[in-house]
């Protein structure tokens, strides 16, 4: 395999919990707590986690939408978090982000044609003369007719808006896209349309995705390598077939068995986890998962398991394996 396009090393992002007098931080939410992985050119990398796992924060920190606490994000040899403003500005044409909610990620007062044209002009990828044509082409590629250009976001349905948001992102012709739950607010029949759009675009434009989702079905469909996140750290990372056929971490197993399968005749043995995800402000000592793990031992309560390679293309952080 060639050099990774994106390399994340021990990335941490803590948010202060303000309180007390003068708003001093009284604690830290460890949203991302020491994550390392690589994403290779042209692959779709899936990041799966439940709410509060820190997956969104991770995606946003990769694109430096907020500063990191520590660690490093290398994109094609560029240390994203140490780039001077001018250089950083240039990376916007190479890395883009697609937000979860297509309703709030479009400015209600800007016509969609303008919304797509703006970034093109900002990065001098088009001139005022030819920008209209470019916008039309991009919209067409995302399955939207050119006549929609003069409309406002509120005139579109959720699926159409997500197409617009995708069009806006790919208009800059990026190599790498972080897609944060791009279909979770959409209906099932529309989800399929958008997922297909993602695969089509990847094929046509040789895109690399970091696809963030809580939906294992979608991630299995779209991604070739998948990382499972729990409370700020990655607990398991493997290729698609490895992860779904031989899951190792108890959390991955539980997650897989909890996904409802649309087949009433298939009876499965379910691992139903007890309790809730603990607060990232006050995570459990030792293995983060031990409070809910059915197999937890003493060592799990004391020592943080190392994230290590167990097979080719399969890494896991668990004492039991």
């Amino acid at each position: 395999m060639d050099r990774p396009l994106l390399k994340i090393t021990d990335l941490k992002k803590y948010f202060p919990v303000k309180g007390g007098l003068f708003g001093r931080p009284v604690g830290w939410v460890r949203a991302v707590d020491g994550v390392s992985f690589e994403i290779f050119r042209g692959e779709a990398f899936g990041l799966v986690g439940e709410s509060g796992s820190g997956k969104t924060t991770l995606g946003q920190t990769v694109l430096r939408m907020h500063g990191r606490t520590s660690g490093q994000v290398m994109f094609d040899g560029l240390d994203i978090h140490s780039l001077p403003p001018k250089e950083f500005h240039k990376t916007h044409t190479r890395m883009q982000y697609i937000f979860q909610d297509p309703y709030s990620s479009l400015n209600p007062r800007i016509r969609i044609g303008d919304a797509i044209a703006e970034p093109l002009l900002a990065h001098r990828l088009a001139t005022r003369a030819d920008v209209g044509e470019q916008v039309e082409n991009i919209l067409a590629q995302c399955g939207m007719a050119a006549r929609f250009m003069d409309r406002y976001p509120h005139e579109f349905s959720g699926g159409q808006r997500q197409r617009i948001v995708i069009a806006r992102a790919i208009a800059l012709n990026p190599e790498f896209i972080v897609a944060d739950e791009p279909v979770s607010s959409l209906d099932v029949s529309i989800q399929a349309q958008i997922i297909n759009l993602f695969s089509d675009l990847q094929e046509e434009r040789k895109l690399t995705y970091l696809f963030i989702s809580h939906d294992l079905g979608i991630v299995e469909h779209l991604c070739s390598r998948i990382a499972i996140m729990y409370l700020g750290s990655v607990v398991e990372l493997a290729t698609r077939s490895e992860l779904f056929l031989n899951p190792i971490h108890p959390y991955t197993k539980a997650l897989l068995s909890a996904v409802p399968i649309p087949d009433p005749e298939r009876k499965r043995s379910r691992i139903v986890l007890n309790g809730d995800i603990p607060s990232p402000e006050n995570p459990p000592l030792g293995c983060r998962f031990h409070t809910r793990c059915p197999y937890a031992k003493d060592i799990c309560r004391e020592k943080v398991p190392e994230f290590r390679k167990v097979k080719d293309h399969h890494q896991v952080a668990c004492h039991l394996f």
Partner: protein
Amino acid sequence: MSILKRKASSGRKRSKSIWEQSFRRLFKNRSAVFSACILGFMFLFSFVGPLISPYSSNGIDVTVMKHPPDFTHWLGTDIYGRDVMTRLMLAGRISLTVGLASMVLSLLLGSLLGAVSGYYGGIVDSIIMRIADILMSIPSLPLLIIIAAMLSEFKVPTDYRLYIVMLMLSLVGWPGLARLIRGQILSLREQMYMKAADVLGLGTWRKIFHHLLPNTYPLLIVVATLSTASGILSESTLSFLGLGVVEPTSSWGNMITIANNLIDFQKHPWLWIPPGAAIFITVVAINVLGDAVRDVLDPKMKGR
């Protein structure tokens, strides 16, 4: 504003602009249309009326002093025999002007300081907001009265009193506005589309003027109407107390001062009821219109 110009032949259906859509909805609201008509009438009455009126403002006519309303003088005459209706029109010019001008001033001051405070945050924000806090801790009427009294001490020429009143009203009015705008900017900054604008690498100028500010216009418009209403009310109160606009310039407020004279108050109600009614009608109309505009532009803001 639009980057993409419409191609003449493309036949794209260009949807109406947000303003046009809002305006249409406003037009469907009966009470909004009605109050807009009343306001229009008030403006015509004040600014065009005197030109049509057969009487002049200083047309002292000793033969018809304190004459009750009849067909020649629809609202009667005052103690100098001047036509009350004509005076009402001229006073309306002053009252409406003071209301509008103080609104514009406090809006400028408030939105500028509020936007700076909200956008930059930090120490600038703290300073501006503390000043606003201090000004807001003193109820506005006593504060206005003190400032007005102080200005009386400085013997400001009566011609300038008008402008001073505008300044005073905006001085008292801006902190509340600045807070509102600041809150709006802060919440807008957290919007996903502002984050998206960051990731897309849009320039700061574009972000502020095309993304941030246009989204504050609805709030500004609503606030503008309401602050015009309160400006007119405060001016009338100050003038009634003799601390605002003073004779010979007349405003609706100082026309009512005549009611302090017990005889005039009891026997000549046409001298003070019409200006009071004019204030009331104008302010109600502005408030109703403002409320309707708020419903149309920003339904979430209702009742705040």
